[in-house]
């Protein structure tokens, strides 16, 4: 069954220069394996399209039922250089939570 990622996870996002950091957390830690299986670097790349110019890295925090993504060159130059309204990537976690995932595997 396809559902938006927001049905099983929440998150928070921030910045380090032109890198967007997106933390995605399973509401229920038992569903962490679904996150780990569904929210891959490739799918995140496809989701954001040309908004992300650089590479994407994924880190696993099973102790928190969470994944941490680093999206490089994703904030229009970042900080004060950026011309984006969301220059600090505050809404990038919500953007990722729109992604459709398959909860059945």
């Amino acid at each position, binding site marked *: 069954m396809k559902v938006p990622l927001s049905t099983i996870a929440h998150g928070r996002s921030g910045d380090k220069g032109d890198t967007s*950091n997106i933390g995605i957390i399973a509401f229920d830690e038992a569903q962490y394996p679904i996150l780990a299986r569904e929210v891959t670097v490739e799918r995140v790349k496809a989701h954001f399209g040309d908004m992300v110019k650089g590479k994407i890295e994924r880190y696993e*925090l099973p102790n928190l039922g969470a994944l941490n993504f680093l999206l490089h060159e994703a904030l229009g130059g970042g900080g004060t250089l950026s011309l984006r309204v969301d220059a600090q990537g505050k809404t990038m976690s919500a953007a990722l939570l729109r992604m459709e995932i398959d909860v059945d595997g």
Partner: protein
Amino acid sequence: MIRIANGQGFWGDWLEAPVRLIEQGPIDYLILDYLAEVTMSILQKQKEENPELGYARDFPPLIARVAKLMRDRDVKVIANAGGVNPIACAREVRRLAPQLKVAVVLGDDIHSRLDDLLERNIFLNNMETGQPLSDIRDRILSANAYIGAFPLAEALATGADVVIAGRSTDTALALAPMVHRFDWKDTDWNLLAAGTIAGHIVECGAQCTGGNCQVDWQNIPDMANVGYPIIEADPDGTFVITKHKNTGGRITTDVLKEQLLYELGDPAEYITPDCVADFTSIHLTSAGTDRVRVSGIQGGPPTMFLKVSISYSDGWKALGTLVYSWPDALAKAKAADSIVRERLRNLGLEFEDIYTEFFGYNACHGPAARPPDDPPEIQLRIGVRGHDRKAVDRFTRELIPLVLNGPPTATGFGEGRPPVREVVAYWPALVPRDEIETRVEVIE
């Protein structure tokens, strides 16, 4: 157990928070984080205009406001409010609150040492791009090394009521009282990592007590009176995150998970001047209403380097907006964007970046957003950035004419021509640790 409260997540955070933390319940230390990466450059400019400025100007009046309570309740304050002029900040605090003992931590400011460092082949290349500092040498506004918790702990050991630092790390503000009171050594890496992670959790103030929380945000109680965070730290490196009773907000494991992931890089290697903390070792357990216990934290030794934050002038930018109403609001805004871009090309103007967003459609989520079906209005927002100030200024004159000479039903031009702003950019670098010698001065 000691209680360490954070009353300021950035310069501009809620003015009432630090006062309420002292008034509304017991705390031992109040920490206040004032510095973001570009703040130092703003402060440097203020100092150049007036050598008595260059620090967070909200800080001395705040201390004056709480000075009596600090003494009555034995609360010490630790803040990186000193900016590029910690001594001037300390003198102003003393002028407004003469009963308090103030200590400053110096040595982070390397602006005047840059040429000396470069001559000795300490290149300060950009950590992210590898570019040499010589590319921007003549445009540098400020340069500071990030200071860890030990110099702050040394300042606390003088018996100061107020410790003022320049560019200390955010996490060091929380770790310093633990080092001071629990006598932690610089090789107690698991303990230092625990204190560092406690600092990371509270460094953004109410972001760990229900602010900016995505879980059940509609039902988080009394956000108008949100309580700011308190660390109840134990000598064994475990701690509880809580807030004063009868304050708003919420602290749960979900809330803390969001903040733990905020501005996080590689979770196994959270590098600070004091240690390298491992976020994959964190164990959270609920310990009652608005109380979460944090344990299990592991860490390792710090690196041979300290991070340096350099700010420099990097051209000009301007951003302008117009609003288009139904019908065809998005199509009109898109047409207006094309017209502006063509006019800029016809003028022969070149920019390093020109960027368009459509509010009501893709400003926040870009390609991940779906186009709206039939929006009542769309705001067009166009920005340009470049080193030619004249070109950026010319751009600011190209938006308002569209109200008369572009697609129909444009409005929202009441603010007039958008301002041209200087771009101050951030240059992260590394400096060998032994190049930075801090010292503590007590201002009598």
